[in-house]
């Protein structure tokens, strides 16, 4: 709202269309945010008591080898110079080499990020398709067994350690029942069958028409995605319940019922539509958190994803990898906020 108002005033003064001002304001704000984030991460990273040279040369290296790599990494230069070079490289699309994998950071990200997108997308799909209906039902039948069940599920989702849940899931569904695939993205029989196009195995297998590989990939992703979705499902269902309760106590709901509309029609057409804007925010945030915060699930399920990559980079003092990840996470937050902004305009006419 505020952005649009200001843009409108500025546009009127300068005789430019309002969308130009919107784009300018949003774009400049995104750039300043990303620059600030990068600067903060860079300088904080340099203060960490971790030596990235050791990660490359090994603990037993002699001083000449150590010094050679120290200089190669530019660590002998003043911090602001290092940051300048880093920004120059970033702007030219060069993230440098990751010290702890030995590869170009961009190549690593092309490998790990699709794996995480695939996992997080399925997880959020499960989280939303289960969490939203449960939240709605819990609000509609407040105080009923359904509501209690939703609360218990919410409590478990918040409080159960993912590590434990992951292992228990593996024991039950993989080892005992044999319903799902084990750790990793594929069984050994299916590795290297499908050409890599998007890096998302389900998509790549579908493009290649390799449905057996697709089914195997799906059997491997379903458990980690379900485990990952559990916490976000709890989060989404609890907030859906609160939003719905707030709407259901409004007078317009009563008025609609008095007019003769059915209970579920009122809930669907009036109450639920009014919480849609808030839900979009909640779901978007949950999705971004899944994209960058699935470290434990990725470890238990041997999932070569973004969260583990970021944490491994941090522990190795690998600032090239960490900064590239921070840039991506920052961009994700900004992009998803923008998408939310657009969705608000579609869902709520008052924001147009």
């Amino acid at each position, binding site marked *: 709202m505020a952005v649009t108002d200001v843009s409108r005033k500025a546009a009127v003064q300068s005789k430019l269309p309002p969308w130009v001002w919107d784009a300018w304001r949003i774009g400049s704000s995104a750039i300043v945010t990303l620059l600030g984030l990068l600067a903060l991460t860079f300088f904080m990273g340099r203060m960490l008591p*971790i030596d990235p040279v050791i990660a490359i040369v090994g603990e037993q290296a002699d001083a*000449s080898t150590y010094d050679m790599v120290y200089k190669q990494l530019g660590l002998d230069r003043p911090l602001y110079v290092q940051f300048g070079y880093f920004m120059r490289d970033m702007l030219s699309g060069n993230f440098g080499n990751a010290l702890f994998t030995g590869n170009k950071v961009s190549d*690593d990200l092309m490998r790990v990020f699709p794996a995480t997108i695939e996992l997080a997308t399925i997880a959020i799909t499960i989280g939303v398709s289960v969490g939203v209906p449960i939240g709605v039902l819990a609000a509609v039948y407040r105080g009923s067994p359904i509501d209690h069940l939703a609360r218990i599920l919410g409590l478990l989702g918040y409080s159960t350690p993912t590590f434990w849940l992951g292992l228990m899931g593996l024991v039950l569904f993989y080892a005992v029942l044999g319903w799902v695939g084990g750790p*990793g993205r594929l069984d*050994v029989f299916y590795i290297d069958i499908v050409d890599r196009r998007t890096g998302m195995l389900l998509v790549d297998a579908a493009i290649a028409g390799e449905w057996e590989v697709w089914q195997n990939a799906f059997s491997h992703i379903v458990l980690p995605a379900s485990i990952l979705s559990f916490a976000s499902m709890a989060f989404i269902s609890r907030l859906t319940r609160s939003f719905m309760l707030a709407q259901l106590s409004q007078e317009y709901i009563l008025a609609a019922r008095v007019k003769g509309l059915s209970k579920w029609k009122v809930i669907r057409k009036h109450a639920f539509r009014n919480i849609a804007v808030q839900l979009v925010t909640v779901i978007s945030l949950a999705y971004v958190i899944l994209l960058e915060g699935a470290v434990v699930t990725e470890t*238990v399920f041997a999932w*070569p994803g973004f969260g583990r990559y970021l944490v491994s980079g941090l522990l190795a003092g690998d600032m090239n990898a960490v900064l590239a990840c921070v840039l991506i996470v920052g961009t994700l937050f900004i992009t998803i906020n923008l998408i939310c902004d657009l969705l608000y305009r579609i869902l709520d006419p008052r924001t147009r």
Partner: protein
Amino acid sequence: MRTVLASSVVLAAFLGLAAQPAVAATPKDALVMAWNLDALITLDPAQIGEVNGNDIMINVCNRLVQPNIKDVAKIEPQLAESWSTSADGLTLTFKMRKDLTFPSGKPATAHDAAWSLKRAIHLNFGNAANLKEWGFTSEKVDEQIVAVDDLTLQLKLDKPYPVGLLLSSVFSSNVSSVLNKETGEKNAKVTDGKSDHGNGWFKTQSDCVGPYRVRTWNANDVVILEANDNYFGTKPGLKRVIIRHVPESGAQRLQLEKGDIDVGRLLSSDDLKALAANKDMHVEQTVMHGYSYFAFNVADPILSNPKVRLAFRYLVDYEGLEKTVMAFQGKARNSLVPTGAFGALNEKDGLPFKLDLDMAKKLLTEAGYPNGFSKKYILSANTFNPAVAQHVQANAAKVGIKLDLEQMADANLFSKMRAREFEIGQIGWGAGYPDAHSMISRHAYNPDNRIESKLAQYPSWRSAWFDEAINKKTDTAMMEKDPAKRIVLYKEIQEHMLANGPMAYMFQTVRPIAIRKDVKNFQIGPFKVDYASASK
């Protein structure tokens, strides 16, 4: 209600799609291993400095010679069929096998061997020290390493070192892997006038002489090796080796029990105990040439007292820990030369200490600290380290020593110890080759104790430990050609270090590997896990 029904249908479809018939076993022609591949950053033999890379590439790139897989002090021919030294001991000549070929079928010659050794020096990664330590330098290497013809490799030495020591330390190590010179030169990249000698290419691919070749490496995911059909030696028992990145012990155990992997390489003590009791499994424990120990910074006035350091050695219940915290992880040993290495003390003499609080108290009193003192004790937060450190801390408290434990990431611990920024530090070290010189030359010998010399590759320097007599004895032992005399000298050094040294060695590292019993003939030694020997 319709929403609930729709959700239920979606969930049911979900589970239906996921459900699939369980695959009974791993492929008959492949060895499937699970390991934590986090540390694997390069496949270039000149650069490899960690366990994963060594373990994999020793099965991909043969070396000029190799230690016997079980009796590691015995060196055997590999790519070189024989060797000889000149009368003055200053020229070492290798005769290469005639039937060596790279996976492409191109013959491998002494020229490839010479190029591979030289590039290791020019690249100056950590492994270059293996050559630099014996007088090879970047400036002189073209005269020092010469391919006389396709089958003859000649090396000029600066001193007449005992040939057994050279073979063990240099020519069975990574740097003596024979890489394809043509591939290296074709893929070399020059930056600021300096060539990478194909490092960019060899980091992720292989072109050398060995039973396997690298087919795929997806970092933090999977490594796939494929049998080299042009290998001169015995053909591998299994066509492929698939190493999957599974960083969690519980997940590895489940996969082993289910038969989705054949070999588990990183398992916790609890999981190993359970697997050892499983009739379908075998847990192979190999005593490695590495140590877990705590080091004292002898620049500290209190820790410079040998009696204080000796007292600490009586604060550890070696046998008790071996059976509990260190089960499947370590074997108690105090001497700095590991069992199995040339010149090592026998098992009894190598473990003279036991938990004895009265003795520790007596030594502290004699040292002038009857009421103890306080010290900071740094350690890695990984694996068994915190439990062992807490054990030392508890026993130290009983004799009046207050130890403040500080756990940290490995990289941080290494930095602090390399910079001498510690009082007591618990850490590990792996000997590079099975000869007493490997440990003694780093842990007892210190060429220059000045802080500005920055000899961080010497743990002795890190501990500010300097003993002129031990330095001389190490030099004498290194040049001694009579093996029996060398053994005597090493025995004296070990005994001296047990009583005075700056490190309290606790455990020789044990490498547990859980293997399904349908994998046969899998040969495992401290310096090589021989993938090619396995069959099903």
